[in-house]
């Protein structure tokens, strides 16, 4: 058996359904919401790698993703779907993490090509990240270096089907296992790495706490005493390399 871990699909943990899910009214509302979320995906217009060139053809007249309700949006606040189109240099990953944390609510990440799975063609480069799902919860990968618009379209349809059936809850993992993700990020960027977004505050606010939300890595954030919502800028936020 090789010493590095073999990728297995995560076991379908039976999550404890919270109160409103059981009530009929809550279930129908969530069902309608999932239906609408599937049919109106806002894609973030942020091209991180070489696959970005495949997106314009999939949006314009030949493949026309607006038929399924997808629109390119400019800022992470308005977007639901983050496309990692190819290899991620360490520098870009830092901005991708900030962008991901600025996205809201049910958000989905889709990795293009093998570079996001195990480094792909740049497997031996010192500057690129090898496994994207160490740093962000990824919903779907598309094989192909780089996948053509037909493959992208088929992937989007699969993602929509996954959202429609309510199985696309992977974004909550970022809150439930934030300590693990933060640990990986600090291993890469240094112990003082943190983003202006208050992920722990949001987890507490939306009751998305998991066993691994707080841990030894998040303890390092405490000394920054960052987050006073509505209090104004805090000068302890200086990011040291």
């Amino acid at each position, binding site marked *: 058996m090789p010493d590095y871990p073999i990728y297995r699909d995560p076991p379908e943990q039976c999550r404890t359904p919270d109160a409103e899910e059981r009530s009929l009214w809550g279930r129908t509302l969530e069902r309608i919401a999932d239906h609408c979320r599937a049919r109106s995906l806002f894609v973030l217009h942020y091209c991180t790698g070489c696959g970005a060139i495949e997106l314009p053809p999939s949006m314009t007249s030949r493949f026309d993703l607006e038929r399924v309700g997808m629109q390119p949006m400019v800022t992470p606040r308005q977007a639901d779907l983050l496309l990692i189109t190819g290899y991620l240099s360490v520098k870009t990953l*830092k901005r991708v993490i900030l962008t991901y944390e600025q996205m809201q609510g049910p958000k989905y990440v889709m990795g293009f090509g093998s570079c996001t799975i195990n480094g792909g063609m740049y497997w031996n480069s010192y500057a690129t990240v090898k496994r994207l799902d160490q740093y962000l919860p990824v919903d779907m990968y598309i094989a192909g270096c780089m996948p053509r618009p037909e493959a992208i379209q088929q992937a989007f349809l699969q993602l929509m089907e996954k959202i429609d059936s309510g199985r696309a809850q992977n974004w909550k993992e970022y809150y439930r296992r934030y300590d693990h993700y933060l640990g990986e990020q600090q291993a890469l960027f240094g112990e003082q790495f943190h983003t*202006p977004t208050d992920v722990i*505050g949001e987890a507490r606010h939306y009751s998305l706490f998991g066993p691994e939300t707080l841990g030894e890595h998040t303890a390092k954030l405490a000394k920054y005493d960052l987050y006073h919502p*509505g209090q104004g800028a805090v*000068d302890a936020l200086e990011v040291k390399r």
Partner: protein
Amino acid sequence: MNAFDLLLYLALATLLPSLLAPKGRSGGMLTTLAYLLQVWLLFSLLPSVSQGGSVAACLEFAAFGHTIGWQLNGFGWFFALITAVSALIASAYATGGWERQCDHASRLHSLMALNVLAMYLLLGAADLISLFIGWELVSWAGFLLMAAPGGQSVQAALRYLIYALAGALALLTAIVLIEQSSGTIQLDALRGALASLPDGLSWVVLALVFVGFGVKLAMPPFHLWQAPAYGYADGPAAAFLGAISSRMGLFGLCLVLVQMVGLERLVGLALPFSFFDAQSLLAWAAAITLIVPTYIALTQNDARLLLAWHGIGQGGFMLLGLMLGNDLGTAGGLLHVLNHASYQAPLFLAVTAVVYRTGTADLDRLGGLIARMPWAYVTLLLGIIGLAGLPPMNGFVSKWLIYKGLLDAQMPLLFVAAVIGTLGTILSVYKLIHNIFLGQLRAEHREVTDAPWGMTGPMLLIAGFAFISGMLPGLGLYLVEPAAAALGLPMPSFDLSAIHAPNGALDMLVVVSALIGAIGFGALLFLNAGRSYRTQPLDNYAGGHFLTAQTRYQYSHHFYAGLLRVIGPWMRPWLVALEQGSGHFLDLASAASRGLYYHNGLRFLVFGTVVGLLWLLIVV
């Protein structure tokens, strides 16, 4: 010993407390109480001045065969009431905590009391001489109040004094001409007396009166002094001056134009071979007063100057309303005097509260104060909605009246000029509130808190009145009625909450309650659509950049870059150059004439005899 005498003596008495007890707040407290008493006295005068009645004071003396006395009619009463209320709010604000940061607070109280006394004397004038006495006292007291803080405000006040002296001379010649032509100087006797003057003489009188009173109302070309003079005065003094002081010019102008000359005569007084008559000329002067200062205000970087420039602009609105002559225009013009006072005062007080806490009024060094000074934000918000004339506030009612009046008087181009002025106001007020309260909070303002309650209370009170009188315009119109009756101008039919006109009525109670109801419904929709998480201002989209407290992530300097690229070249300060030019010319002329008699007695003798001979020739 009627109520008007009591009012005058009380106004004299309010000088004393701050003179006798300079230290501590007792002087200020007593002055505020005195103003409260004055307001109560004025309200007790209401029944006797409505329907054109007037109250004569026993202060009277005879000189050169004319009796000079004082009596308060409805028109004077209306302005006196606004003066008293503005002084009350300003002095309450000054004693509420502002005096801790100001060494000359007691001097401010006494100067303000002096101003109020001078204004009563002007507003209560029964004849032209007492009018002139009151006018001079107002100018002199205004100069003292503006020069109180010292430094650059003394320069601005001196500049005002020069304009005021020029205005006073023009006014004096006008009074002499009126007295010669009509034989009497009693205002009641002069009612409509100037209508029968020959064209040439009436044009001269109009021009002199326009210069005399226009200086105080800061009509262009005399508008250069007012912004620095009012802007750099002390906070409460600026609020008082901005609210009412320049409306004394409007009082005088209307007294002569509407009461003595009469609007029909103005329409009849046509300029040869041009379709301009006196009324449309004055209306266009008001329209220019409305537009030019508003767009100058747009470019200001100091909050107080921006507000002072707006004070000039709104003066144009009032005159425009009064020049129309139809019922809606009159009500709009006079109501705008009250409305403007009710939102200009809180605006100046809110900006003073910001200066009190942060030490600066420079729009480029402020930002994000809403998180720290919410009550100052609420006051400024109500004030700018009033200044811009948007529905929930009273500013909208008077602007609506003036717009309807313009449309009924079939003057569409003036309507468009008024709209251009309003658009300029909307743009510059958003710049004001955005640069001070919105955007990123600066690191040095993180511990700033709201002004003490003694200051926030009065400004919220008057801003609240502005909102209430917006919801119920009848309140303002009941006060305006005696003034219109005294001037002999028609009033539209109105009740507590609505103004009725055959071709388009306005019921503010319905409009405001519909707005508040809809906002309530919107809140209902908004609040149960999922919970939102309050985050700190640095958690912001910056194109992937990590924001830190050191990055200056705020757009406030050169706020309307696109607009200024178009209108920038139109606003080169050529008038300021003209003013400085005339100043230099006067210096040269005085130096040259001094050369005549200085150091040289003989040349002076020759000069003296020549002038004497010339005089003899003319007189004989």
